[in-house]
């Protein structure tokens, strides 16, 4: 089932029709189906963060349609957007973005608390996810008291707890060592399989990208290539490296 559809999205920064104008995205179109694990790759400045911000409805496209749930998200008002985010989208950030003032548990419950859930429902939901993601023991600790990997898992719990239609992950492994990074990727795969969560991950890490089922390569604000994972992870990995080297090579 199709979960979101992006039609000819463009994003322009700077004053219109002036020389300073800069197009970060140039009429991009694609679809995401339910349960997909998609990677978005590209060099710095290629527009991948802009795309993620638009998909996360933190930013608005200059032109184009972004349809989710039968609604054009681009036309929603600011408060409707906030509601849209809390209901449909879960975020995982590179620097975790947990609130230092709260325990991990409170951080994870925050989106539910903002939606006004009952305590009992919240705790039931929490227990299952936390157990699956393995941070049960550190729940009552504060973010600065636990490791980066645990913080990122807590952030993943927070993204997951509202049963969002889509999880957006912005370089989730960027701040983690390779072991924690691999753990997190396994976790995302687990979430993708177990919770049937649709995940869209922006990364420049080839290893992280090789966990995805499909990869969109972006260059200069346009979709340059698409890759699908085959049976062999090794082949997929090599294919990604190949595309990336072309991308990188042509940039210079």
């Amino acid at each position, binding site marked *: 089932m199709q979960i979101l559809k992006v039609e000819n999205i463009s994003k322009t920064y700077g004053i219109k029709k002036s020389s300073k104008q800069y197009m970060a995205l140039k009429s991009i179109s694609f679809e995401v189906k339910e349960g997909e694990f998609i990677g978005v790759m590209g060099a710095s400045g290629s527009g991948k963060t802009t795309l993620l911000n638009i998909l*996360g409805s*933190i930013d608005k496209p200059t032109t184009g349609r972004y349809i989710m749930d039968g609604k054009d998200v681009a036309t929603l008002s*600011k*408060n409707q957007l*906030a*509601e*849209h*985010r*809390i*209901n449909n*989208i879960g*975020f995982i*950030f590179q620097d975790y*973005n947990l*609130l*230092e*003032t*709260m325990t991990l548990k*409170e951080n994870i*419950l*925050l*989106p*539910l*608390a*903002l*939606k*006004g*859930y009952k*305590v009992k429902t*919240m*705790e039931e939901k929490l227990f299952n996810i936390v157990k699956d993601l393995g941070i049960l023991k550190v729940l009552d600790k*504060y*973010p*600065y008291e636990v490791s980066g990997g645990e913080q990122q898992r807590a952030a993943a719990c*927070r993204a997951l707890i509202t049963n969002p239609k889509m999880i957006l992950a912005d370089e989730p492994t960027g701040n983690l060592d390779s072991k924690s990074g691999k753990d997190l990727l396994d976790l995302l795969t687990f979430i993708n399989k177990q919770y049937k969560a649709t995940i869209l991950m922006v990364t420049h890490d080839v290893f992280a990208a090789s966990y995805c089922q499909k990869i969109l390569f972006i260059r200069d604000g346009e979709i340059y290539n698409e890759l699908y994972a085959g049976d062999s992870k090794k082949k997929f990995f090599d294919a990604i490296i190949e595309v990336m080297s072309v991308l990188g090579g042509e940039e210079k």
Partner: protein
Amino acid sequence: MKLTTLALRNIKRNFSKYIMYFFSLSFSVFTVYSFLALMQNEQVVMAFTYDSRYRSMLMSFGIIIMVFVMFFLISSNNSFIKARKKEISTYALFGMTNGKIGKLLFLETMMVGFAALVMGIGAGIFFSKLTAMVLLEISLVAFTGDIAFSIDLKAIYITTIGFLAIFSFMGLSGLGVISRFQLVDLFKGDKLSEGKSEGSIILLIISLLLIGAGYYLAASNDPQRVVMAAIPILVLVIVGTYLFFWGGLPKVLHLIRRNKNNYYKGTNLIATSAFSHRMKSIASVMATIAVLSAVATTAIATGFTLYRNIEKNTYDIIGYDMYFYGGQEDVLEEVYDAFERHNIDLIESYTTDRYQTTPQMETLMVEGHEYLSSHKDYFRVYSQSVYNKLIFLSRSDSEAIQIHPGEGVYIYSFYGPSNISKSIEDAVVGQQLIFSNKEIKITSVLNSSTLSFGALHILVLNDSDFAALLQEGDISNVGESGEPYGQATVFQYKNPLQAHDLNRELDQILRGRVGSYRIAYNHYIESMETFGLVCFIGFFMSGVFMLMTASLLYFKQVMAAEEERHQYKMLRKIGMDSATEKRVIVKRLLPVFLIPLLLGITHSMFAMKAADTMVFSNMIPVDNSYFTVLAFSAVMYSVYGIVYGIFYFITKGQYTRILR
């Protein structure tokens, strides 16, 4: 030279942070200068400082202000430095020594301080006429002279020296703060809690017990005990307040966090956790603000209540616009002439004989002392109709009375504490006064000096009893030697408290020529001088306290906002809409302002209770004078609350602006 440029650039860049700091700094300079200038002002010197009481009052007020200004400046400077931790650590990272950083900050402090000094003194000079006028207006009714606009060199000199000393001290204490910074803090940044405290239930209980004990002592009805307990009350309440904010409030927050049903509502979760995250760093500030608010509100409430009751109190004591007794034949004509000459409407005057009587009666004891006996004391005696006539002419609250034949009303003319009046009433009511062939029973007791005209004990009788006793010779207006007791004349006239010239002339006519005289105006003026000064100091002091405590809170919150900014950014990303954000901000900021204010006002209410027991219950002759006092205080509490509220909204605005 480079350091100076850097300092200037820092000020420019941190302008929005500096502006509030600058204003409160200027205001403290303004306060100190104005105060010093007032002390030097010729008119004020003439009006007040000849009396050593007033001089010491003004002096101690000056010292309190100075100490407080110093406390305020140092603590706001230190939190200002802390807020720039990142910037300072960066300097250190690039190899600036602590000494050099200290020098840089000192330069900045001096630049801002110097500007504030100029601004504050400038404002002080500009408003010098106004401040002197306000002081003289509210405390000296009789003052009619012209107040000059003045530049006081001595005050400028002292203010400048004083503040330069404070600034240097600030620089030193800032250096202390810097040397305590650890470079590694830069990398941990804001992630580390400023010291989360779970509080302690024991501290919570102890703090409440201490405050409660203080309240209990303050609420005592025995003035002697209240006076004795004044210092213990202060210690109990102040220690209790600090313990409450250090250990009690964190515990309360901790308990709130345990009540999941309430705590896990979105806005509560964010606001409460953020508040308790900062608890430790703000606890002392909040406690200080609670105590200072209590002092300030008590000061203005006391001043205001006294001030508003001066007129009433004057008439409670004097009774009439004017009266005198003895020497009527010499002065009465001159007095009438004076009214004519000053063109003041004499509404009515009335002359009565001062009758006395000494009936046989038991010797009465009150609290172990001989109170009333027939061989030592006499009664001033009035018939009911004369009494009612005099009451009608007086401006006191006394009411006309109706007395049955055979009964008498006893009035004592001195003011004592309320527990004494009960003993007197118990002793006197039911007493039989035995005259030659008549007995009068005392049925009720009043307390008023309106009819005393020199006597301590007053008796009012039914008209026919009075006539009969006069006939019998039991009541007489001549002494045993045949010397008459003289008459008393009371006056009621238009604008008695404003007619300065008439009152002054009456004073001259009557002085030394009559038995005794009282003019309401004189008493009024005298009270105004004392209480007006108290009131003025109260207003000035609470103004200073309020501005500084509120701006201290402002600093703390604005600096917290800088650190909390990224949290709100993150919250917006996970879908907090702007309405929720507004609610979160209110819930986050309101307690910081409201809790100290409410606690301070509660303290003040008990302080007013103590003040009522000591002072007002004698001044305001109502059954429960505390309610009257509270009503007057409530006016001042609201004024304080409103000004405080304005600061809250300014802070909220700035806080919101930083988050966006």
